[in-house]
């Protein structure tokens, strides 16, 4: 089993050895982009997939993710992958000024989403014990 870490969380997927080749359904579950004849699509947008990134119905998700301008990393064993978010996507979101949503647990493990506070002013502050 292969682990993929991205903005949406942690996903367990079945990947073909020698890369991050995922079934179309796993690729969509992990990235939010669906395989269609015109390429990888999300909402109204489609990105053409190079012929080399499609093999026996599986998608080279690492190649696709890098093509979108995002960092891709894996551990030494190739069993854990990070599909990061590239600078352009981050800067676009920051310039948009809409606070990016996130959901994090409290001390009891109960998740809280920032978006649930819409309608209130929010003072978001970080701290650490270290």
């Amino acid at each position, binding site marked *: 089993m292969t682990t993929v870490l991205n903005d949406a969380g942690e996903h367990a997927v079945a990947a073909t050895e020698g890369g991050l080749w995922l079934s179309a359904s796993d690729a969509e579950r992990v990235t939010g982009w669906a395989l269609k004849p015109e390429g990888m699509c999300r909402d109204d947008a489609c990105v053409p997939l190079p012929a080399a990134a499609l093999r026996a119905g599986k998608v080279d998700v690492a190649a696709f993710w890098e093509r979108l301008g995002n960092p891709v990393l894996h551990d030494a064993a190739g069993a854990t992958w*990070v599909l990061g978010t590239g600078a352009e996507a981050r*800067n676009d979101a920051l310039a948009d000024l809409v606070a990016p949503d996130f959901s994090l647990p409290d001390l009891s493990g109960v998740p809280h989403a920032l978006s649930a506070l819409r309608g*209130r002013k929010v003072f978001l502050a970080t701290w*650490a*014990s270290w």
Partner: protein
Amino acid sequence: MWQLLYDELKDHNFMVVAVAEESRGAEHARPWIEQAKATYWCLIDTDHRVADLFGMVNVPQSVWIDEAGRVVRPAETAGSTDHFRRMDLATRTMSPDDQAARQAARTAYLDAVRDWVRTGRYALPADAARRKQPRITADIALAHAHFRLGVWLRRQGRRAEADRHLAEASRLHPESWNMWRQAADLEAVGKASGPEFWARVQALGDKPYYPPPDLPGFGR
């Protein structure tokens, strides 16, 4: 630190969200949260996701978000000052003047938050807020990916491999005190404020450790 602020303003359509950037997990944040008797949201962020999303590089930093969910003050120092850099390291104390100045800055910062919640003052217009947003480079984006993998590998007990990714994260994003200090803390509790930390702070020279926010009382 935020409980009084929240108590005072909670009837003004207001919430404090305190995020612990704590890769060791909730138990390392618990004593502080329980001691604060916090009734606002206290969340645990093992992957430093909030720092990644909002471009934060240190703690404490804050972002002010309005009722429509829009950032009206991008990431900035949340009331802390650089007076600690002059402290006597043997006794870990600051001069009375520095202590007073530090306290005054903290009070001024809390007053600004209060003003914003009550009147909307200090909320930046969209153009100004946009200009103040941090600028994310390709190296910073890659650093966050290395940090994420490093923290995950640490959780699996794969220390040596993890530490290579954490070191690479700091190399790619040297302005992030969060990444460096968290990695130091994962190596050994206390290392994040040990001699290597102080050497890094001294190496800043005239540069601030806590850049002052553009608010009254911060001498800009």
